[in-house]
Structure formats: structure tokens, C-alpha cells
């Protein structure tokens, strides 16, 4: 069958930018002008529309299910339930335990129960109303801490209980407690944050002549999707061809499957292309969120503020199915006390199964929750020791050669101390110009003309693992083809890596130009006609797919120079600006001449250094590939009578190893910081008895341009010798540190303890 309308095609990368430059994005103009095709724009002649019936209850037994009236609706072509799942009934990112369609019980509000394919989305929606489900409503399990305390009693599914308990044990905490001169404790809570990507889940499934299916979906990891889809459809993986459709943001929320299997089932059943596209409300139920957390911390130190021990319990609520909770717990435990040196540690990280909304991957992945707690603790300790926030952090900062909580030695630069010095030295913003309401808390809603406004300053530090951890080999693959087209050497770069807005599509071209000395680069759509690229998550694609493109380009270059050597009889050749250059003789041939009609194509896999699992009892192990630091200073104005907040400035220092594309990088730091701001002061999925109370952008608020202040950025480059170009993943670290910095600034302004995020106006005036 022909490709759908609005399916992605090859794009020419504009500009001539090499590594370190900031050439324009290939998709930039299209996105700004509204012409970029997102997955929700896909269309195909003769296609049907799929829709999903979802559970209204957080927990219920399905007594009976009658699809008859729905099926009898004119314009309806199929109504499917769990009985129609061709193969395995469950799937999952790390552990297959999530039903494709609910079998006999629903375990979260919004769990898919049945599917409809119809001629028109409205007919499909009407037909959903005609599916008769008899539910026996059960009491939902909603208290993750109760589950951890008594996992046998509160089992929401076969696996349990507790998803994972990861202890970390170092030294002797009890002895250290006896010796500590200063002890501080705190309990902290993080609400459920949503990725709130702007392009809801969407895709198109097209039945293929070979009995397989062609999928066009906005996702984060094509190959892992296919590995999960194939057994459920009872198809060999090679008969599932998946192409990345235009992605409107991801942030972890597309790492789990949403409509992929559903659309494929409907397409295979009806023999017609089937499109599914969630609306905003459905999207809130259609993907996992950031785990909410309850955290109990105790730190002991000398009176000079040198850390002696930490005793920590972190409970994360993953909802009913496993998703990525095991690895989220691993991150929370291994990074539970941040980038500080502790001689004695007792950390217990838990993930619990409940009937609350399902949680999984989101930017920062377990490290965000812990960071809010450990940074709040550092401020508490600073106050107890009479030190400034910067002093206490500086005094205990890790550096190259330090041990993390897991015993892993940091074997590349970790310049936390100099970063803090640079941050503190940055000038502070002036007092607000109150003649413009937009500079004040409340903005043009005019809640103050300056009355009640108090300024506060706070600091936050975060450490994030880059690439997958705990022994996982998250490789990437790139295919690079160099050929002469119209006499001009042209590079085609093909990977399966998801462009989710982060700018990898730009970077791939920069790397190809750098390595091959060629200006013209075309980027092929991401699909599984090429090998696995791993997920666009864990800040890993510049490192991993960047590394794979570099390796494939090096192989192409080697072949090019070998051909040139055969042609010229010289061994001192290099390629520059489309020309083969001999060290001794200068320009000896053009690249196009050497290529002739015979393209060079090479495919390479790239692997990072192996890591090790964490010991299940001690939590020790060199589990992380790379670690990245970001530090923030927040300046806020708080209306202390109304509890309204204006973040005046966010300053950040981040080490990125090597700046690959400054414009993209600054965008990542701005965006990550904004997402951290959202968590600090507004973003929360509010849940009562397992049900979401605010599944809309009317009541799930994300920062606007009047909430996100200008940033002062200082990007430093301490190369990591283990990584391609010395780079360090950069997308997540700013998401960690901006939240605690802002909350610290709010505490500074109000004197309130503020142990829960997001901070609400009630917390600031209560």
C-alpha cells in the first residue's frame, strides 16, 4: 500500500553547521509555521477511526461485557475485547504485566477495556457508549506507604505488592548517629507530575499484504515498541514495520505503549487502515506519569557541616502495572543523597503497586523526586550548622574520584565545587519594576501593586545518570551512506532514534558534516528498517546515537580514503570540504570524483561502557554510564499575603562536557528548568480515591511565558574522555535542580517549611 498522507519523508538538513555550531533545525521552520506533520495529522484513503473504551473506576471486577449494541451501530466495523487479542494478553516495557485490554479486572481509572473501529471518530465515540460493561466496583488501593508496610495485604495484581525494594548500605549508620553533632530530619512529598506533551498520542496502522502491519506512530523507542507489540499480535517482529510519525513532545510519556497494539488489532481485524488519536482528556489517562513520592530523611553531620550519615526511605507509587518502576526505584536509591560524599548510608527505595494512576518514565526518572528531598535536607543542615546553602554544598561536594552512594567511583570530571562558585558569583537581578504588572506575582490579574511582596533566593543541585544503568546494554545503530548526487557529495543518515523535539535530527547532520567533510546531509525517517537506536530518554541520544553516527561516518570515511589512496597512490589523505587532501600534495581529488557512481554505505552499532547491576542487599555497584550535574539559583518574589509567586530569575550552571549545538542545548536547559518550575509551583495530577480530578489543561497547569523567567546560563565544558566528543547528556539535569532551588527561595521569602511540591498558595499563607 502507498504511504499515508503526512507520513514523514526524508528531510534535507539546512545550513552547513558542524559539531559545535548551531545550524537551523530541519523541522524548525515547519514547526513554527504550523506545517509540521504530527502523528495526529496522518491520513489515508479509506481509513477507519479507532476509539478506546476506558474504565471509569480505579478498581473493579468486570462481571460481564456486551459489545452487541455497539457492533450493531451503523458505520461500526469492529468492536474488540481481550478475547480478540491475537497473542499474548499482556505487555510491558520491562515486565509484561499490563493487559492489552482488561480481562476480568480493571486496576486504574482509564484502563482500556474495549476498542471500536468506525467510519468516523464521532461514530466510534457513540459506539463506545453502547458497549455495556457490568462492573463490580472494588475498594481501590491508594496508599503506597501502606502497601510497603504490608505488601501481602494490598496486592492489586499478581506481582504484588512491592515492585522493587533497593537498599543501599554503606558503613555503620547507627554508630555515625551516635557521633553526629548535628542531626536534622525531614519528610517530603512530591505530587504526580505529567509530561503534558502538546501532541496527544496518535498513530496509524495499515494492514500489509504479508499479513503484518505497517505502523506510523509517535513514540520514543521504535524497536522496544515492536518487541512488545509482536507477541500480542502473534506476529514475527519482522512483519511489523514501524515508522516514527511527527512527535509533539515526549518527556518519557511515550516510552510505554499507548495505541500501538490497539490500532494494529483493529487494522488486522478490519483489513483497513485505522487511525487513533487521543484528545487531551484521554491523553491524561493514556500514558504514565511521574511517580509521586513520600520520603523520610535523616542526616547527621559535624558541627562544621561535614556529612556523617544519611538514613533515607523513599516510597514511589507506580500504579497498577510495572512499566519502568523498577528502574525508577534504582535511580531514586542510587542517587538518593545526590552529589555529596557520605561515609555512612542507609537508603531504602521502594516502588509500590496501587490503583492510582500508572506511573513510569518522566524526564529525571526517579532522580527528580530524591533531588527535592536531598536538597531540602542540605538547606536544613546548613541552617542547623550556621552555614550558607552554598557553603554546605561546597563542603560536601563530590569531585572526580569521589564515591557515589553505590560505591561507584566517579571517573570523569564532576566539577560541582567550581560550578557552585560560578553560580554564586553571578549578579543578582534588580528589584522588580512594579510599574508593569507582569513583573509581579499574579501578573495582569492584578492581585498586588507591590503589597505583601517579599523576595527570596534559593539554590539547588542535581545529579542525573546519563544512558541506561544497571548492566543494560542500550546500544544504538546508524547507517550512513555517502554518494555523489548531481556531482555533489551527499550524506544520508538513517537511524531509528526518535526525534522528540530535543534536536537529535540537527545533531546527526552536524556529526556527519564534521566526520565526512561534506555539507549536504539528508536525514531519513526513523524506522525499524535500520537497527535499534534505543530510547530517546535518559539524556542518551547525543551520546549513543551521536556515537553511532560518528562510528558509521568514520567507517565511511575510511572506505572513502582507501578508495582515494588506491586512485592516487598516496597514504597521507584526509577529507575536507568535499575535497580529498594530501598532506604533501594538497588537493588531489574531489569526494564526488572518488565516489563516482558507487556509493559508500556503512552501518555501525555503538555501545557505551558496560555497567553493573546494583547488589540487591548493599546497593553497591558501578551502575551508571555517565553522571551529569546542574546547579540552579532561583530568585522569587512571593506575595506572602496571597501565596502567589513570581519567579524572577533562574540562573544555572551546567557541565555538558562538550557543547555540540549551543542553541539546542540552551533550549534543553530552558525547557528542563521550566518543567522543574512547573513541579515546584503548579503541575500536579490531583487524585482522590484513585481518580484524577483535573484531566485537562484548564486545571492541570503548566508554566506560561509569564511564569518562566529569563535565565542566566553558564555552560561549562569538562570533557568526559569516555564519551563521543567528550559530551555529557544534558536534557534531564536541569529538570532536577530547578525545583528545589525555587522551593528554597520560597522558604527564604516566607519562612515556611514547604515539604511538599507543587507548593500551592494555601501552603504559603497557611
Amino acid at each position, binding site marked *: 500500500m502507498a504511504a499515508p498522507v503526512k507520513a514523514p519523508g526524508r528531510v534535507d538538513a539546512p545550513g552547513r553547521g558542524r559539531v559545535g555550531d548551531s545550524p537551523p533545525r530541519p523541522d524548525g521552520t515547519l514547526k513554527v509555521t504550523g506545517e509540521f506533520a504530527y502523528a495526529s495529522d496522518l491520513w489515508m484513503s479509506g481509513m477507519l477511526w479507532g476509539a478506546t473504551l476506558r474504565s471509569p473506576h480505579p478498581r473493579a471486577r468486570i462481571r460481564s461485557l456486551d459489545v452487541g449494541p455497539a457492533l450493531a451501530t451503523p458505520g461500526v466495523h469492529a468492536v474488540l475485547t481481550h478475547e480478540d487479542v491475537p497473542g499474548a494478553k499482556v505487555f510491558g516495557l520491562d515486565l509484561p504485566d499490563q493487559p492489552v485490554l482488561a480481562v476480568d479486572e480493571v486496576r486504574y481509572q482509564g484502563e482500556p477495556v474495549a476498542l471500536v473501529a468506525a467510519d468516523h471518530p464521532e461514530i466510534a465515540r457513540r459506539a463506545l457508549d453502547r458497549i455495556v460493561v457490568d462492573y463490580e466496583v472494588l475498594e481501590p488501593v491508594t496508599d503506597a506507604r501502606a502497601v510497603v508496610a504490608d505488601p501481602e495485604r494490598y496486592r492489586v495484581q499478581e506481582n504484588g505488592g512491592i515492585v522493587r525494594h533497593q537498599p543501599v548500605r554503606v558503613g555503620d549508620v547507627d554508630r555515625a548517629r551516635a557521633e553526629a553533632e548535628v542531626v536534622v530530619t525531614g519528610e517530603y512529598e512530591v505530587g504526580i507530575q505529567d509530561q503534558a506533551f502538546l501532541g496527544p498520542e496518535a498513530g496509524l496502522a495499515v494492514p500489509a499484504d504479508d499479513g503484518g502491519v505497517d505502523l506510523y506512530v509517535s513514540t520514543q523507542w521504535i524497536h522496544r515498541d515492536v518487541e512488545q507489540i509482536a507477541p500480542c499480535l502473534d506476529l514475527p517482529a519482522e512483519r511489523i514495520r514501524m515508522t516514527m510519525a511527527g512527535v509533539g513532545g515526549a518527556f518519557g510519556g511515550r516510552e510505554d505503549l499507548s495505541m500501538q497494539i490497539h490500532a494494529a488489532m483493529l487494522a488486522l481485524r478490519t483489513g483497513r487502515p485505522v487511525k487513533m488519536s487521543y484528545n487531551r482528556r484521554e491523553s491524561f489517562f493514556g500514558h504514565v506519569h511521574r511517580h509521586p513520592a513520600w520520603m523520610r530523611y535523616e542526616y547527621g553531620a559535624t558541627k562544621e557541616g561535614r556529612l556523617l550519615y544519611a538514613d533515607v526511605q523513599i516510597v514511589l507509587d507506580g500504579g497498577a502495572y510495572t512499566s519502568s518502576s523498577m528502574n525508577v526505584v534504582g535511580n531514586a536509591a542510587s542517587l538518593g543523597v545526590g552529589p555529596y560524599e557520605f561515609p555512612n548510608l542507609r537508603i531504602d527505595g521502594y516502588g509500590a503497586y496501587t490503583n492510582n494512576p500508572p506511573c513510569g518514565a518522566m524526564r529525571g526518572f526517579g532522580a527528580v523526586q530524591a533531588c527535592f528531598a536531598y536538597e531540602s535536607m542540605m538547606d536544613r543542615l546548613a541552617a542547623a550548622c550556621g552555614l550558607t546553602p552554598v557553603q554546605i554544598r561546597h563542603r560536601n561536594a563530590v569531585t572526580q574520584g569521589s564515591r557515589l552512594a553505590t560505591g561507584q567511583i566517579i571517573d570523569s570530571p564532576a566539577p560541582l565545587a567550581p560550578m557552585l562558585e560560578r553560580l554564586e558569583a553571578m549578579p543578582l537581578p534588580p528589584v522588580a519594576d512594579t510599574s508593569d504588572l507582569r513583573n509581579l506575582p499574579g501578573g495582569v490579574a492584578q492581585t498586588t501593586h507591590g503589597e505583601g511582596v517579599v523576595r527570596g533566593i534559593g539554590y539547588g543541585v542535581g545529579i542525573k545518570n546519563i544512558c541506561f544503568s544497571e548492566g543494560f546494554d542500550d546500544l544504538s545503530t546508524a547507517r550512513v551512506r555517502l554518494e555523489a548526487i548531481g556531482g555533489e557529495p551527499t550524506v544520508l543518515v538513517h537511524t531509528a532514534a526518535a526525534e522528540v523535539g530535543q534536536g537529535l535530527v540537527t545533531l546527526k547532520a552536524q556529526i556527519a558534516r564534521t566526520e565526512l567533510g561534506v555539507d549536504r546531509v539528508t536525514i531519513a525517517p526513523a524506522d525499524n528498517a535500520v537497527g535499534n537506536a534505543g530510547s530517546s530518554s535518559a539524556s542518551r541520544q547525543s551520546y549513543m546515537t551521536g556515537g553511532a553516527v560518528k562510528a558509521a561516518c568514520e567507517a565511511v570515511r575510511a572506505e572513502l580514503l582507501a578508495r582515494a589512496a588506491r586512485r592516487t597512490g598516496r597514504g597521507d589523505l584526509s577529507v575536507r570540504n568535499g575535497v580529498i587532501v594530501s598532506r604533501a600534495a594538497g588537493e588531489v581529488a574531489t569526494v564526488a570524483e572518488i565516489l563516482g557512481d558507487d556509493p559508500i554505505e556503512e552501518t555501525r552499532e555503538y555501545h557505551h561502557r558496560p555497567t553493573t547491576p546494583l547488589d540487591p542487599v548493599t546497593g553497591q555497584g558501578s551502575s551508571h554510564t555517565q553522571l551529569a550535574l546542574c546547579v540552579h539559583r532561583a530568585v522569587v518574589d512571593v506575595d506572602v*499575603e496571597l501565596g502567589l509567586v513570581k519567579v524572577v530569575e533562574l540562573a544555572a550552571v551546567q557541565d555538558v562536557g562538550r557543547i555540540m549545538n549551543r542553541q539546542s542545548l540552551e533550549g534543553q536547559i530552558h525547557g528542563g528548568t521550566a518543567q522543574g518550575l512547573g513541579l515546584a509551583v503548579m503541575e500536579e495530577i490531583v487524585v482522590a480515591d484513585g481518580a484524577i480530578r483535573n484531566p485537562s489543561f*484548564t486545571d492541570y*497547569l503548566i508554566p506560561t511565558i509569564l511564569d518562566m523567567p529569563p535565565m542566566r546560563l553558564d555552560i561549562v565544558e569538562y570533557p568526559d574522555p569516555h564519551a563521543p566528543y567528550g559530551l555529557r547528556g544534558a536534557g534531564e539535569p536541569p529538570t532536577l535542580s530547578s525545583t528545589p532551588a525555587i522551593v528554597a527561595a520560597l522558604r527564604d521569602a516566607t519562612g515556611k517549611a514547604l515539604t511538599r511540591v507543587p507548593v500551592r498558595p*494555601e501552603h504559603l499563607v497557611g
Partner: protein
Amino acid sequence: MEFLRPTTWDDALAARAAHPGALPIQGGTDVMVELNFDVRRPAALLDLTGVAELRGWDADGDAIRIGAGVPYARIIAELGGRLPGLAQAARTVGSPQIRNRGTVGGNLGAASPAGDSHPPLLASGATVEAESAARGVREIPVGEFYTGPKRSALEPDELIRAIRVPTAPGPQYFAKIGTRNAMVIAVCSFAVALDPARRRAGTGIGSAGPTPLRAREAEDFLAAHLDWDGGGPLDDVVARKFGDLVAGAASPIDDVRGTAAYRGHALGVLARRTLGWAWREHTGQTRREAS
């Protein structure tokens, strides 16, 4: 769903009479959201955007008569000087795109207690001009317009033709609490309008009761206790008492946007502050424009 698109006011009234189940739509900033999310499924939509008579405003004696189709953006740009309270409220509605589409007429039609234009309309004593083909025009004082959550005094065959808002006889201020600094639905809101010549103050409360509310006791208190002739600074005791009376006039609930306790507290603060600004302006200091 039927889509009715009259181009004259008479045709609109006739369509309204013929299709009592039709849902009138102006900017669509409320209606389209409800349709998209399947909250409402009216038999027909009555699109009023083609009716030229609704698109203008004019001065009418001591009042401004605003057609039901005038978008917020024009109120901000064209009426900020004469109707400052309403213009300030309009400035807090949604985003620039929403303000280009949304109308006060639509806000009244929806009659949500959280609608931003209601408090200044209450505070300034506006009237709603409703009309039906059968009975002609009637003027509904805005204080009698709101009859319940998302319910109004409009009859099934009536349409809102215009809103008559008295030209501000004195300082007016509007303030709205939201949990972000733009594009936010009101957690609660408040408007005050002074009429020094008549020694009266008007009030309007939003998002803190089943309907938009007036704080009548607080209005009477100001009428009696403000030093209308003296021109001295606002007595802090008066301001605080006024805040307490406004808070007491509200009947807020706990919901996902905020708690009843916070709403009550915040209304007290907003009432005190807006009165302070109004009084400073009245006593000769420069008023501040919402920017």
C-alpha cells in the same frame, strides 16, 4: 448537529424561537471546548458571529452599550478609559487568541461563576439587554441575571443582544487569583467600583459561590464609613472590615483549584487592596493601568 448561521439580528431571533434546543455560540471559547470533550451535545448550534448588529459598541447616555459579539480584545483596546473595571477583567481572560475570540456576551451566556467579566459587571451595576422575537427587548439587571451554576435568567427563546455598562463614575479595580501568572481560570476574583458623587461603592465576587455575587453588606458599609468628602487616606480599620465583609459574603467550596478557606482569605485581601487602590485614585493619586 444542525448549524444555524443567521446574518441579521431578526433572523437570529427567529432561529432562536424556532430551535429552542440550539446552543448559541459567539467566540466558541467555551462552547467548542465542551463539544470537543463531549460534555454537551446540543441538537443545533446557533452561530451569532455573522450578526453585524452584535459587533459594535456605542455610548448611550451615561452608559456604554456593548454588543454581545464584541471581543475582549476590543474592550481592552477601546474601552479601558471608560470601563476600567471591565477592561482589567478582560485583560485577564485566557490568552491573546482567546481574547480575540471571546466575548462578554458569551461569558454571560455561559453564566459560569468563574467567568471573569461578571464581577466588574456586578460592581458597576450593568444591565443585560435580552431580546426575543415574541416579546421584544427586556433589560435584566446583572444582579438578577445569574440564577445558579451555569444558569441564567435568559428564557429559551431569548438571546443576549447587548450589555449596558454605566461609564465609570469613579475608580474601578478588578483582581483575580490564579495559580499561574497568565491564562488561568479564577480561583476567586473581586471587583470594586466607586461612585463618589452618589457616595456608593459596588462590588462583585467571582468563583466563590454558586453564582457571581455582590457583597451588599460590604457596599453599604463603605457607603456609610468612607470619608467621601475628606479626601484623606483610607482608614486601615475600614479597609479590613470591608475585606471581612466581602469574605463573609462569599460561599466558596473546596475544589481542585483551591480550598474554601483560602478563597475566603484571598477575597479579604483582594477587597482590601482593590479598595486601597481605588481610594488612592479617588483622593488624587494616579491610577494605574493594567498593562
